[in-house]
């Protein structure tokens, strides 16, 4: 139980990562795989944010005088997540457009049926 309460955020983040990976590996529909990627990415962002968290910490913004610097959460993971989200959006946009094109070419989004290319 101690472990659970200590690491709640990590557990949540990793659960999302695992769920996302499961969808990516198992699902046949390309759209579902893309959704899986979205969940997987979200898990990673949560994990990164959790790494920088400080108990009872505040946002690292000195918006008014008198804020305690020692009580602020680590800004670096937040910056990393900002970058990672933008990259995730870019990949997602490209994936969606490719899915549209796949549908236009094959009339299906089932990945098991789309295998003209063989080893």
């Amino acid at each position, binding site marked *: 139980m101690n472990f659970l309460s*200590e*690491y*709640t*955020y*990590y*557990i949540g983040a*990793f659960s999302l*990562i*695992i769920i996302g*990976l*499961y969808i990516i*590996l*198992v699902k046949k529909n390309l759209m579902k795989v893309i959704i899986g990627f979205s969940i997987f990415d979200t898990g990673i962002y949560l994990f990164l944010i*959790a*790494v*920088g*968290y*400080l*108990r009872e*910490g505040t*946002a*690292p*913004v*000195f*918006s008014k005088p008198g804020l305690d*610097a*020692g009580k*602020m959460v*680590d*800004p*670096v*993971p*937040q*910056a990393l997540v*900002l*970058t990672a989200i*933008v*990259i995730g*959006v*870019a*990949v997602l*946009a*490209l994936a*969606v*457009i*490719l899915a*549209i*094109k796949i*549908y*236009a070419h094959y*009339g299906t989004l089932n990945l098991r049926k789309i295998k003209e290319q063989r080893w």
Partner: protein
Amino acid sequence: MRKLISIILLGMVATGLFMSISQIPFGEPGERIGDHFINQGVNETGATNIVAAVVVSYRGFDTLGEVSVLFTAAMGLGAVIGLVRRKKTHTPIEPASLIVYTGCRFLFPVILLVGTYIVIHGHLTPGGGFQGGAVIASAFLLMYLGCRGKRIRENLSRGLESLGGLLFILLGVTGLVIGRDFLFSFLPEGEAGNLISAGIIPLIYMAVGLKVGSELTGIIDHLIEDTDELPE
């Protein structure tokens, strides 16, 4: 079979991840570079939003890369769609209802204004170029929903996109020209908390906001165009 293998594989991944976090205590302060940013960030960059200071000043090169990633995606999108573009749709588009139409026209300038505000105040309050750019793009998305059939001028959005990117690079290179490092903040830090402060951070954020706003709008535009032409 596939499910079984996946579950075994994922079990291994999960075990590995959970075992590896034992060294990362949750919510405890540690010895990190983040501490330096919190303690010295305001002095060194003049920005009160430390995340903005990290994103634009300390790790500005990442931001340049990030902008390029989005640019790559926008260009890739255009290239993939490329072949069958700009066919006029035969079925006339059903117009949105009057309430949606009026609402969108009313909200459009307000959202643009909020987006611009978020971009310009990036170094003072939570927000910045990416967030503001996304808000600006959402205004155009709303316009596409409400005022159907209206399109942005593709040339204009691509021009602004380039301009934003070039501005970023130009600001970076200026640091080299005056004999310092790339992306060096060559403007005075000013008084922290003022709108005009924090060196080149607001300028870079404006370039980023311009670029992200026009890029995301372009992406939305492409996606709408392409879904118009799917086979029935």
